[in-house]
């Protein structure tokens, strides 16, 4: 349904143009939940924003790649047509439920707005529909609460409202950028359940972004691992956990605190993620990689498709046997 | 045992301010403003060196001459050299603005920090006091005060400084409130640092950017206020020249010798512009530094 192909994006900064996405490729199928994981700054948000053309145009440029949707390249689509897709066929929810809703308008108004934009109709009807949606995402007394302002909602409720807004036009694809990161574990669990339920009910595809591999396991059909602006591994969720193909994935998995043993040091990945303006040559992970060989630092490593439909950006993917979760 | 060299001491000074300076330097209008301000300061403070005449030297025979080789910017109604008066007048005008801003700072900064940091009673009281001061239009109040105390630039600028102190107080207070909420303040408290040390070492340096920005804007306002007050004949006492009194005198002649109003006008505009540009530059530089600090 959605296919990102070799996407490269640069940003203008104090230090000139820096590359923040480098060869990002993956697909999202119908009814499929694809999870994008990676540490902070790895380019997850930029990837998701670029799907809907929301990357700030003034300071960014695409140097290559396509985002195919319905046979159209979203990156080349006229802005007017893209706006017709936004919130309608593809919609998005964001990480910060506290700031993603406009404090100056009621929640109902903001949900209804999306509906009226794409479906038209009277404000009243749209508000009724908004109330229905709030009810659907599990907000009690939805009919009354459409008139509340965002600050009268708790964090979890706001995120539900965001989901209601995203789903009101029955999109085919929902992009959720770390929708649970700012929430409590108990609420996070609620939201994850909700998304899975909605996927089952509406059949929309979901691109879910997180840095928490624990959450990934809860809902992913397919996982895309990003590091320093690159996709380093794509895999079915089950396979990834059993046998990661990229050393970075392995590192991430073993670093999960759930994997720790009391009384022993927690496993870590040495060093830190590189800054976009000082990317190492060759494999970007090689300076931190315990399996690195001389070859790794030489030339850029392509994202290689492996036999079982997985893909991995590691020149040693063939000869390394990496460990998954226990 | 030889002491280890400590190049670090110098770095310390350089560090944050070097960063700031770099940002400032990258901001063309700000640099232009800074250079302009520097030039204005040099020529006015060095007026005795640069001025071709003394500012009070009257030559009635040569009155209201346009620009001539002897008088580059012409002469006024008493035949005094406009250029010399501009240079010396600049000293007065700039010093007057500086005086009122200094008074505003002297009152507004400590009280603002106090109100913001201590809160409660003092905050309430000081806020009401500033409310009261802010209920008067600055110019009207200044004129009324002058009517009571008598004219003179010093009086005018002191009363203006008091009016401005309410504005500065507000800004500093809210900046302090923001800084006070910062976790690093709580960190200092948790360490056991005494209140005065926190005020001095933690709060003050962090409201300093706000202060600097405000000061540059206030200087611009004060300069214009000086001009207005002197225009009304309430400012610099004759024969002292200030840009405002020069403009006031030029207004009397504006129909006959319009050029007389042009040069002080330009001087005022340039000085104000330089303050504003520097203020903007500072705001942008500090702004970005803070944003960066926030992640």
């Amino acid at each position, binding site marked *: 349904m959605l296919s990102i192909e070799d996407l490269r994006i640069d940003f203008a900064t104090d230090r000139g143009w820096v590359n923040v996405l480098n060869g990002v490729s993956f697909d999202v199928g119908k009814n499929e939940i694809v999870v994008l994981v990676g540490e902070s700054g790895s380019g997850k948000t930029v990837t998701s924003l670029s799907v809907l053309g929301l990357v700030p145009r003034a300071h960014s440029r695409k140097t290559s790649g396509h985002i195919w949707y319905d046979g159209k390249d979203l990156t080349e689509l006229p802005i007017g047509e893209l706006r017709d897709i936004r919130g309608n066929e593809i919609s998005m929810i964001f990480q910060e439920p506290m700031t993603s809703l406009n404090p100056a308008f009621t929640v109902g108004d903001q949900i209804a707005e999306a509906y009226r934009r794409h479906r038209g109709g009277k404000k009243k009807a749209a508000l009724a529909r908004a109330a229905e949606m709030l009810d659907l995402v599990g907000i009690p007394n939805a009919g009354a609460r459409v008139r509340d302002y965002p600050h009268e909602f708790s964090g979890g409720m706001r995120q539900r409202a965001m989901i209601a807004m995203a789903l009101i036009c029955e999109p085919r694809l929902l992009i959720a950028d770390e929708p649970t990161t700012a929430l409590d574990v108990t609420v996070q669990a609620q939201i994850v359940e909700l998304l899975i339920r909605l996927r089952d009910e509406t059949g929309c595809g979901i691109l879910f972004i997180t840095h928490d591999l624990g959450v990934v396991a809860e809902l992913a059909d397919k996982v895309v691992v990003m590091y320093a602006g690159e996709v380093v591994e794509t895999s079915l969720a089950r396979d990834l956990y059993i046998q990661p193909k990229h050393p970075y994935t392995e590192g991430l998995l073993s670093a999960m605190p759930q994997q720790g043993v009391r009384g022993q040091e927690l496993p870590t990945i040495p060093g830190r993620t590189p800054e976009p303006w000082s990317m190492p040559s060759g494999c970007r992970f090689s300076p931190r990689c315990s399996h690195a060989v001389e070859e790794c630092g030489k030339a850029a490593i392509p994202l290689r498709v492996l036999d079982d439909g997985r893909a991995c950006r590691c020149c040693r993917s063939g000869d390394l046997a990496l460990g998954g979760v226990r | 045992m030889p002491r280890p060299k400590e190049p670090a001491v110098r770095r310390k000074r350089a560090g944050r301010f070097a960063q700031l300076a770099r940002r400032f330097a990258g901001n063309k209008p700000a640099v232009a403003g800074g250079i302009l301000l520097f030039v204005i300061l040099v020529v006015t403070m060095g007026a005795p060196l640069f001025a071709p005449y003394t500012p009070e030297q009257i030559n009635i*025979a040569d009155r209201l001459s346009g620009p001539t080789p002897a008088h580059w910017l012409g002469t006024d109604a008493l035949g005094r050299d406009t250029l010399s008066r501009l240079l010396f007048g600049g000293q007065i005008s700039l010093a007057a603005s500086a005086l009122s801003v200094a008074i505003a700072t002297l009152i507004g900064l400590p009280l603002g920090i106090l109100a913001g940091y201590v809160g409660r009673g003092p905050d309430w009281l000081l806020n009401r006091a500033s409310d009261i001061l802010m209920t008067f239009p600055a110019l009207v109040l200044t004129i009324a005060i002058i009517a009571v105390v*008598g004219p003179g630039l010093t009086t005018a600028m002191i009363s203006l400084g008091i009016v401005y102190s309410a504005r500065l107080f507000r800004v500093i207070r809210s900046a302090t409130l923001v800084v006070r909420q910062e976790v690093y303040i709580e960190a200092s408290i948790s360490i056991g640092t005494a209140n005065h040390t926190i005020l001095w070492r933690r709060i003050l340096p962090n409201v300093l950017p706000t202060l600097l920005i405000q000061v540059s804007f206030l200087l611009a306002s004060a300069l214009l206020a000086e001009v207005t007050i002197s225009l009304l004949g309430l400012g610099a006492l*004759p024969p002292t020249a200030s840009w405002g009194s020069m403009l006031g005198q030029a207004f*009397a002649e504006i129909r006959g010798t319009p050029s007389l109003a042009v040069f002080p006008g330009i001087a005022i505009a340039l000085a104000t512009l330089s303050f504003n540009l520097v203020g903007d530059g500072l705001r942008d530089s500090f702004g970005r530094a803070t944003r960066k600090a926030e992640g």
Partner: protein
Amino acid sequence: SGKPGDLNPGSTSTAAGQPAQNVACPPTDKGAIDKNATFTWMYSVANTSFDPDKVTTSNSWMYLFPVYDTLTRLNANGEPEAMLAKKWEVGDGGKTLTLDLIENWKYHDGTPFDAKSVKANLDRHRAKGSFNEQALSDVKKVDVSGDSTVKITTGHGAAPLISILASSAGMMMSPAVFDDPKQANMPTGGSGAFKVTGYDPATKVEYTAVKDYWDPDALNVAKMIFLISSSDNARLNAVMTGQADATFLRSAMYQPAKDGGLVVCQKPSLASFTIALNTTHAPFDKKEAREALNYAIDRKSINQLMQGFCQPGIQMFPTSYYASDPDLTAEKYPYDPAKARELLKAAGVPSGFEFTLETDNLESYTSVAELIQANLQQAGIKMKIQPVELPKLMENFSVNKTADAVMVQQKADADPSIQIAAFYLKNGFSNPGNYTNAKVVELDAEAKAAQSKEERAAVYKKLFQEAYADAAPPVTLCHLNTPLAMNAKVQGVEVYVDGSRQFRGVAIKK
């Protein structure tokens, strides 16, 4: 032209660099005037009341003249003329004045104008608390001797009264409204050619002509509007754009007004720039010190600064006025810093002295002060300039008597005796140091009792010689000549030597 380049350097000015001192305004052309027109005048200060007894400054007279006719009238040259009094006679050895009044005239409220009402007015004017109390202080009693004859008896002499009755002290108001406080804002009991039909204090007064005015020749417009703005530029702008018909000019505006195509006319006036001294403040108590001041000031350059509109002079009134000594010209005190220094030695202050000059905070005053400051510096006298607003100025000098010296524009009063009393007599308002000179006092009394103008002129000549001999304060700098500017349609405006602003007979061309 008044262009500065034309002026010779130094102090010997030539006629070429100066504007003509005497340019008459366009006269009335009876055949071509529009009787329904409105004349708009623009002035700098507002009136304080419409009641001649409640005004607080003679500046307000201008606003009262259209409403209240006076018993006598001073024409543009300062000579007494008939007005409500057809004729008059000084009698009883100069002690009484008998007035013969016009008949068949009514106050605006319908009260007939008669001798009884004149007596009522005069008695009200000289009552305690009236603005005119001082001017009429010599009046002992007022008698009605017939329907239209009034006899005024004075203590020292009636001669000054003839002029005084041309001022607010001679304005006639309907006795029916004497006690009506509303008259201050909306006079209804006037006796003049106009009624006030609109009043916006400090901004605008609108006058409408009354029907059947007793002197139809003196009434040529249907309306007059007086606008008020203290901004010189605003006034000139208003006339140049046609929003007002006429205004007065400060010297700096003379050339722009001419260049702007306005009609400009002028005449030397009795008003002067003077420095009044507090003689209790040393060394102003010393004649030599006062003389030194006179020598140390370059009056010609002040005139230059004023673009030729302030003729140097050293006595209270210009030599063209009858109450003056024609020999006391500015040459008597040439600019001579060296001489001044010598005189200072004689005064016991060989190294000069310091004093503060207080003056109005208007630009036209302070620049003169700055010039004087520079002059005095040459003679070793350090003068500080303290600009203050006018009420404060009077308070510091005349009431609290704290000021060393003040520089003011001295307006002409209704009669020379008033100004003489203010400066030369004990307890005079402008004489905080109580400067006295026995001969001057004696001559002043003599002048008041003089029977004729010629006789008075001779006494005043002696008086001013005495004043000169003693270098009596004030230090007169120059006599002002304030031009009027108007558009080409205005006719019949006159410049009054006493500086008063009257628009009797003003007309607008069709």
